[in-house]
């Protein structure tokens, strides 16, 4: 199977990433709405019933751990969306010319920073979940940290590749 071109692995990956992006957008928009709406739910219920501090079997109240869970998923979806968008841009340059351009080096660096922020957020949410007794699965994976380092190295590889490509293009 070919790596580049029509019906290649790159095309399949691009289709997969496009589908993932749509799913992530839906999730991200949903979580954004939830971030705004959820804290207001008790006020809506109070307003609707006309009685203050209504708590129907405890389901209507919004605890801090619920909000923390939503915030955790919101950050995760944001990071994933950013990474998928950058990967799609990189794939686009691969399909329509040379991938060895400075912009791709910057995109890989962006992916590295996004993953770093994702891991940082994971630590932060881990601390907060301990404080607020929230049920957030904090799984510190060493492979993730190795992947972040690999992405930064890949970024520099692309920067060097772009420099060499430019030199080759300007050699007469």
């Amino acid at each position, binding site marked *: 199977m070919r790596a580049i071109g029509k019906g290649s692995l790159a095309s399949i990956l691009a289709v997969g990433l496009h589908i993932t992006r749509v799913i992530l957008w839906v999730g991200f928009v949903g979580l954004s709405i939830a971030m705004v709406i959820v804290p207001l739910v008790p006020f809506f219920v109070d307003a609707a019933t006309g009685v203050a501090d209504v708590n129907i079997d405890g389901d209507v109240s919004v605890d801090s751990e619920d909000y923390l869970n939503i915030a955790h998923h919101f950050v995760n979806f944001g990071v994933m969306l950013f990474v998928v968008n950058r990967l799609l841009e990189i794939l686009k340059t691969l399909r329509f010319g040379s991938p060895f351009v400075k912009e791709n080096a910057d995109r890989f660096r962006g992916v590295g920073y996004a993953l770093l922020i994702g891991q940082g957020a994971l630590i932060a949410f881990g601390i907060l979940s301990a404080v607020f007794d929230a049920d957030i699965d904090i799984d510190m994976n060493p492979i993730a940290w190795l992947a972040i380092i690999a992405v930064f190295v890949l970024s520099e590889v692309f920067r060097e590749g772009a420099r060499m490509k430019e*030199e080759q293009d*300007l050699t007469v």
Partner: protein
Amino acid sequence: MAISVKLDRVLLDRGMSLTELSERVGVTIANLSILKTSKAKAIRFSTLEAICKELNCQPGDILFYGDGETAAE
């Protein structure tokens, strides 16, 4: 201070166009334009040799080291 290329001056002296030189040396006009405008990062010995042969000149007649004003003199 940089290397600058004075290919246009030599071409003018020889009464040859860039297109004609391109056909004679087998280098595309786009690449010769890169060379002429001093945008090139490197020049192959084979290209330099072919240009010197067709223009009947020395590499030093085409390439100059100095700032823009020095090279233009």
